């Protein structure tokens, strides 16, 4: 098991290097360091000297990938790519192009992201499972068909509409929650209520449908039929057999996203003015702050790989027959 994890982690290294190369290529084709300097320095009376000094200070004065001025290994190490990506592997994110310490920002903005994402995730799963069970209970009835059409309809609405409608009614028309914003501490719940509700509702369609399929698969298994044939009541079958066994594929399928919850949601956070990592990334893209985008992409990839690993481990935990090798 341990050996497997170590091997998987080693396997992650070339992936992360690939991720880095890709983001690097994309961003530096878009922006030369000169242009980055210009954005950061503002547009009134900026001199060429100031730009050169900015580049030296931020370490953007070296060649991108290959330094012809040096020989041997230095030709590779004395480059922007090497210097900027090596430190990432030590989770040292360095400074943003605007001069802020990225790690400190991430540490601070992670919490609002989690405050939205965790409840949305947990409540979302709970609600979806409840709904799916409810539908399974009435399977093959008009109610079932109606519920499924409703689910498809809910899935067919763009997430942006949910947010717009939610804000319009709950905050603007009915004065139930603040329009947007965030306060750290206990006061946060008032701001989280609406984003969480919207996050849950927008996920109901897809979630319920998927879980219903999984439960139905379980419901069609022989042992369930046997139990039912023996006269065990429908509710008992549902909660004793279908629910616990159906939970296994559900849990193993959601494990992969858990680490990524840290990254927050781009859309919800920026709509509701929640200062999490999602809006952090979006702001960085819009401001073309390459250092932040690079760090966030790297972090996202690391979390995704951890998620994959967790998935594998969770398989062994729920099913002893699966061996990791």
């Amino acid at each position, binding site marked *: 098991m341990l050996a497997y994890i170590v091997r998987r982690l080693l396997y992650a290294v070339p992936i992360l290097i*690939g*991720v880095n190369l*890709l*983001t690097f290529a994309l961003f530096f084709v*878009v922006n030369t360091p000169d242009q980055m300097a210009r954005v950061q320095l503002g547009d009134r009376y900026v001199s060429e000297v100031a730009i050169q000094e900015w580049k030296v200070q931020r370490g953007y004065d070296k060649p991108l990938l290959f330094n012809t001025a040096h020989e041997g290994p230095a030709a590779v190490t004395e480059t922007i790519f090497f210097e900027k990506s090596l430190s990432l592997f030590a989770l040292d994110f360095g400074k943003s192009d605007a001069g802020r310490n990225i790690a400190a920002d991430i540490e601070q903005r992670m919490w609002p992201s989690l405050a939205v994402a965790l409840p949305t995730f947990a409540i979302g799963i709970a609600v979806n499972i409840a709904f799916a069970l409810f539908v399974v209970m009435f399977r093959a009835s008009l109610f079932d068909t109606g519920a*499924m059409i409703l689910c498809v309809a809910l899935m*067919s609405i763009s997430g942006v509409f949910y947010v717009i409608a939610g804000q319009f009614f709950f905050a603007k028309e009915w004065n139930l929650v603040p329009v947007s914003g965030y306060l750290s501490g206990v006061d946060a719940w008032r701001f989280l209520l609406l984003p969480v509700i919207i996050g849950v509702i927008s996920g109901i369609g897809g979630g319920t449908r998927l879980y219903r399929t999984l439960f139905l698969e379980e419901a069609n298994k022989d042992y369930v039929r046997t139990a039912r044939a023996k006269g065990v009541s429908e509710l008992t079958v549902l909660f004793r057999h279908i629910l616990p066994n159906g939970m296994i594929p559900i849990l193993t399928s959601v494990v992969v996203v858990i680490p990524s919850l840290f990254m927050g949601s781009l859309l919800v956070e920026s709509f509701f003015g929640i200062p999490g990592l999602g809006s952090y990334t979006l702001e960085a893209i819009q401001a073309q702050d390459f250092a932040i*985008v690079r760090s966030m992409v790297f972090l996202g990839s690391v979390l995704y790989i951890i998620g994959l690993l967790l998935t594998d481990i969770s398989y062994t935990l729920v099913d002893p027959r699966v061996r990791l090798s």
Partner: protein
Amino acid sequence: MEVFDVRVHLLWSDILIFILVASLLCFVVSVLKNPLARGRWAKVFESRIGAASFMVILFYVLIALTDSLHFQKRLEATAESTDVHYAPEMTSVLDLILAPMLDRDEKTYSAPFAIYSFAKENIESDDGTVVREFPRLEHGGSHITMEEQHVADIVVKSLTAIGWTLVPILIVLFIHHWYIRKEDSRLPWPVIYFTFAAIVVVSSWALQMSQYYHVLGTDKVGQDVLYGAIKAIRTGVLIGTLATLVTLPLAVLLGISAGYFRGWVDDVVQYIYTTLNSIPGILLIAASVLLINVYIETNPEQFKLLSDRADFRFIALCFILGMTSWTGLCRLLRAETLKVSQLEYVQAAHAFGVSRWRVIMRHILPNTTHIILIALVLDFSAFVLAEAVLSYIGVGVDSSMKSWGNMINEARSELAREPVVWWSVIAAFILMFTLVLAANLFSDRVRDVFDPRMSGSGDNS
């Protein structure tokens, strides 16, 4: 190519969409030839939902196709020169159909069927004093002389429009019904008739009413919202289909070769898709879109016309969407290929020395078609929805291109107004929802038929 007074000028996306349609037709023909596949597909259309949703999709696609036939009008010859020149702006066949909505711009917002503008203006009255009032619209309801006639006029005009459409439709449908009466068809004809009639009546009503009113109001600069929303159909349909044009070859090629050849090929493919997958999708898209903008900036001579540039950005966006979303299908195909190539008859084919290419074409590909199909239809609706989100982030289609995403984006500030400007967002919502819902329902049906195990609605208990 010159026909009449116009020059046909197809955009790249036009050409691509017609290539796609042609290949789809080939696929349909091959399905019709193969009795097994034919039977399966017939099942899809035998369900009421399947048939109705397919007709809706077909209608959207038809609109998108007529909107993909672009041409330039010829300019009148000047006195000094006899050279022939063409208007730089593009017109599509759809624009000809929608002519009543064109060139009827108001100054700014107006509500659906309104005859007054939505914003007050300074109006100089007869005695020279300036009053701040809602002015009459220049075009919307300009035939109405007395305000009291307004509602009655809408009702009368609507009824006439519907009546004049319904009568011929009923006749056509009746003839058709009488004609096929003897055939043994399992297709749900009543539903098909109903959907057909509904589509035709609604569109004809909207078209006829547009001669007098702005059926869905006007937007901030006074353009007809209905016109914008219909033009956005092309954007929505094309983004859903063209992106798959990229996804498909990549996913099929890499997925099947990884599963079939294994070894280092498998390793490389797995590496590529894990790497791509692990980058948060939106970041990758945003960065790539910025890249495209740079390309356009540095090569302005290739994009002389606004529409050419918007089109290039659009194709690039489709390409990027495809590039970032092929991994899911690729993984499915790899797993399926692994499974299929273990089957005895495939192994046997190997033993008989059948070439690898033939094995893939004859055995592996046909066995994975259903996975590809289901993924395609599902991707379609995902792409249409994604466009709205991308436009919000600012990396969507060009702002000069009509799209639902751009409409929704503007709607945010419209909803904050008092009184609320709701018609733009509702128009975008309805048209987008209808398309995505139809696509989702259709994909459900396809899945039920081709992959009963993952069935969404069947209950086998």
